[in-house]
């Protein structure tokens, strides 16, 4: 996921820029939440299976 922080801290005094920034932050938070729920859920289930089968879950591909 691309970092949003590089252009996040714009001139905060202009109301429209603040609005734009806040909207982008909401979008970023929703993206993080969705990723944690969906991809994170898959990974958590895989880790649980790995505990039972004793076959380690390979993490190299995470985030690809």
């Amino acid at each position, binding site marked *: *996921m691309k970092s949003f922080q*590089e252009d996040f801290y714009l001139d905060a005094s202009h109301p429209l820029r603040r609005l734009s920034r806040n909207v982008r932050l909401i979008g970023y938070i929703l993206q993080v939440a969705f990723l944690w729920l969906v991809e994170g859920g898959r990974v958590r289930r895989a880790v649980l299976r790995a505990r039972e089968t004793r076959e380690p879950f390979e993490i190299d591909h995470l985030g690809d």
Partner: protein
Amino acid sequence: MRPKDPPPATYPFAYRNPPRSGNAVNGLGEQEKSLARPVFHSTGRGGGRQSLDWAALDLLFNFLTSPGCFWQVLRTLWQRRLYVGPVARARVPADDTAAMAARIKAEAKRLGAGIAGVTTLRDDALYEGYPRPPYKYVVSIGTVMDRKEMEHVPQSRGAREVMRTYRRSSRIAIDLAAYIRGLGWPAQAYADGEDLIQIPLALAAGLGELGKHGSIINKEFGSNFRLAAVLTDLPLACDAPVDIGVDDLCTRCRRCELDCPPDAILDEKQMVRGVEKWYVDFDKCIPYFAMTEGCGICIEVCPWSEPGRGPALSEALIAKRRKENHESD
């Protein structure tokens, strides 16, 4: 308090092709001074988070976060919109930098910080290749954790308290930065994983000394607090690093070392990027850290973290050192 039956350091996950050693990235063994290189919990600015060697394990750590912790993470993320803001047009003069520093530190404590100190922005707080924040002064703040909750590390309940404290410390930094901007000076909150290394700033600002477990030990609160910072151009008198006797304890005490399940805590100081200091084996610590939502065992078992013990302990250690130095003269 020592945790009962912490999980063993065996993992249901693994790298098929392990990345470059995190210790090597951190500069363990390097004799020349240099800037820190990002390795974990960083935005990987420029190349993105995926450019970091341990990005996959960092992502796993985030995925294994429990719902209660994750909720705190989201709330803290939402607070980031407040890290910067408009600066008041009328500027309060800061000719008396000592009085102004005292005023700012008092405000930090009024907002909820347990400890606060001032230093200048230092190179050892920066990552190689990252832009330098455009501020000169740093107000380093420590927010105390609820000890009763921290007794539950390395379980989720302890991790929730850590994340809750990061959210609180972020809020304190936000409000303090807003206060300074209200005085007519630019200021920005730096908390919650912003790409600034907090520990060197806190050490320089006199919040405590570096302990064997790689965290700061404060005279009053031990290791039971979390850091954040406010960067500003407001001229402030700086505090100095403190000597509270941490090395006198850590060179003799092995509590954290013995209680660390992955045996990541080293008994002697190491050379790291040209500085000899206490260092925790990254390659051993971080997989356990990822599996247990941030572990925290070393902080919890540190004798200095026991409430009320710190000041007397510090005085006793320093008195003993003076006596031993006097006897050897």
